[in-house]
């Protein structure tokens, strides 16, 4: 395997990791505030559909981005109303949201475009184009570092860089601001936050809203960056892989980046090689596809470093009278 192949695989891993990263950070905000979210998948799907549709109608990917975020935020609010206001079961609400998205995207998509649940192919300004970082072409000739800079680091759509910055932003917001401290507290012990005179409901709603926005970015990148339009069920389980990555990362932003890059790398390798030969033993491609889930179960089992979720996760908060 030469340098070029490695750079190509890593490049594709970074692309594939980006939607996972957005969704994983989205789940991180929600779960840190004590709201379980297994509806990431549905929110990604809804925003992928709406971003591609709006971009197709308007011809501008930026307006499409707004559409994608709006769709995802709508579902996030629905989750908020069900699980915060009406104190419903957060897991069941997540299941409902996933079905809602897989149903609506096709029913409405067929009505709008009549293409069997697809949107028209997006071109030009209706897609996020690849950005060439400064000096990328000039430095390509430099050995080793040249290809790494010009092919791996440069040449992605802007959302990839936004995703990497979002990791930093999430860390800063959660661990260096008052809002973040309260958000983490509300996921561990909402009574104490309430006693301190801070509204549990408002904090949880803001976490759910941030979650909606980030999922909107994940879906938008999927439909307008990674692909050129929406296809039925295009999220293909990414919301659940992101959930797996979140557990793998033990609900921490830095680890989330690592976990998403790892799962992106697994997908990139699986896409490139159908079967991998390790010392005469054939590793089937299905094993590579199942590996993120297997790793998550192993982590959850606590045999390799225990993953402990936020303590108040999944419990609706009832104010004492």
């Amino acid at each position, binding site marked *: 395997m030469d340098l070029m192949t490695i750079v190509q695989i890593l490049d594709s891993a970074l692309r594939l990791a980006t939607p996972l990263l957005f969704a994983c950070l989205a789940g991180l905000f929600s779960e840190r505030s004590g709201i*379980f979210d*297994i509806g990431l998948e549905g929110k990604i799907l809804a925003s992928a559909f709406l971003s591609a549709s709006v971009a197709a109608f308007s011809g501008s990917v930026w307006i499409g981005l707004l559409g994608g975020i709006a769709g995802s935020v709508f579902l996030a609010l*629905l989750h908020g*109303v*069900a*699980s915060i206001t*009406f*104190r*419903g*079961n*957060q*897991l*069941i*609400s997540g*299941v*409902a*949201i*996933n*079905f*809602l998205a*897989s*149903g*609506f995207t*096709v*029913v409405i998509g*067929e*009505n709008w475009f009549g293409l069997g*649940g697809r949107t028209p192919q997006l071109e030009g300004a209706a897609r996020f184009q690849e950005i060439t970082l400064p000096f990328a072409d000039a430095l390509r000739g430099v050995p080793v570092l040249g290809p790494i800079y010009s092919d791996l680091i440069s040449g992605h759509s802007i959302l990839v860089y936004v995703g990497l910055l979002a990791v930093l932003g999430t860390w800063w917001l959660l661990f260096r601001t008052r809002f973040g401290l309260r958000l983490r507290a509300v996921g561990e012990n909402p009574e104490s936050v309430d006693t301190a005179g801070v509204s549990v409901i408002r904090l949880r709603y803001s976490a759910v809203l941030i979650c909606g926005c980030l999922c909107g970015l994940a879906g938008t990148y999927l439909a307008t960056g990674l692909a050129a339009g929406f296809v039925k069920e295009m999220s293909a*389980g990414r919301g*659940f892989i992101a*959930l*797996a990555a979140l*557990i793998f990362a033990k609900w921490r932003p830095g680890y989330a980046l690592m976990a998403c890059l790892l799962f992106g790398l697994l997908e990139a390798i699986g896409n490139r090689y159908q079967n991998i030969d390790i010392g005469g033993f054939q590793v*089937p491609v*299905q*094993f590579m*596809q*199942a590996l993120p*889930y*297997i790793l*998550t*179960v192993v982590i*959850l*089992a*606590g045999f390799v470093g225990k993953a402990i*979720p936020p303590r108040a996760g999944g419990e609706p908060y009832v104010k004492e009278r």
Partner: protein
Amino acid sequence: MEKMPKWVDIALIPLINLFLALVVSGLVVLYIGEDPFEAISIMVNGAIGSTYGWGYTLYYATNFIFTGLAVAVSFQAKLFNIGGEGQAAIGGLGVALVCLAIPWPHWTMALPFAVIGGAVFGAAWAAIPAFLQATRGSHIVITTIMFNFIASAVMVYLLVNVLKKPGSMAPETARFPEGAFLPKAYDMASAVGLPFSRSAPLNVTFFVALLCCVLVYLLLWHTRLGYQIRAFGHSEPAARYAGISPVKITMITMLISGGLAGLMGINAVMGEAQRLVTDPVQGAGFVGIAVALMGRSHPLGVFLAGLLFGMLYQGGGELEFEIPAISREMILVIQALVILFTGALDNMIRMPVERLFLRMRKGSA
């Protein structure tokens, strides 16, 4: 004192929720530019207007009763088994292995072994998440979701590399031997001289599903184990104090739940397809969640809700056929709304209704 009469809790509130789900679905149909009343009459007619319709409705209902019972049993112990999809697929694998193992002379001999095969495989697939929940505290929802994906990878791997019929391109097993074919509704109806559609997939498994409803009812409300399961679901500390082992109850409940989901393979794999394909479940595992919620985790409720969802699936298929502007995914929208209103937004209706009954009681007292 009870806040409201029992019939409100088990009948009125689910019906209001169902009604709301249908109203929102009707608005979607209206948005598409079609007549919702026409749509619903096509659905009802397509589902129960002919023996063909009934044959499909009850076939789907059979699947949903199995997966619904699976979720309902786990709900009774306050465990949320979201892995019915994977357990049913692996259960189907178990059924297929039994059917292919020997040239069965007659279905009456094959069926009991297939039941064992499906139940054991389904239960085995639930065993690891159950064990991890019971002993390591890993959240069962997450582990069962992960096991759904692992199951689908296992199914594809086995069908592509191991079980595929030699010389065939499609990833499916050879057809089962004729002795493992279950009698269809047509065979049974013509035996007693009644006409029934020849092409409908409804088969003898329907009666197995009914039997399972009765057995689950007896288990939950007429045995010591059922009492322990429900006690554990109501209050874990109280159950623990009463000497009920949480590890044991979690394991047993999940094994029963997985086994019930696995039995779905009898209907879909042995009864209908008569061979194993990569995805024999087709989302029925998730429908089970809606069925269990709608049926309030009671076998009778699960039976009725399973019937309702059977009608929805068959009627929805006919709907796309009659009005092409409404795609088949409309079923998913209705299903999602039913889960949303009966499951997640239940308190939205329950709280005002409770208040109404309290006021009425005060007025009459």
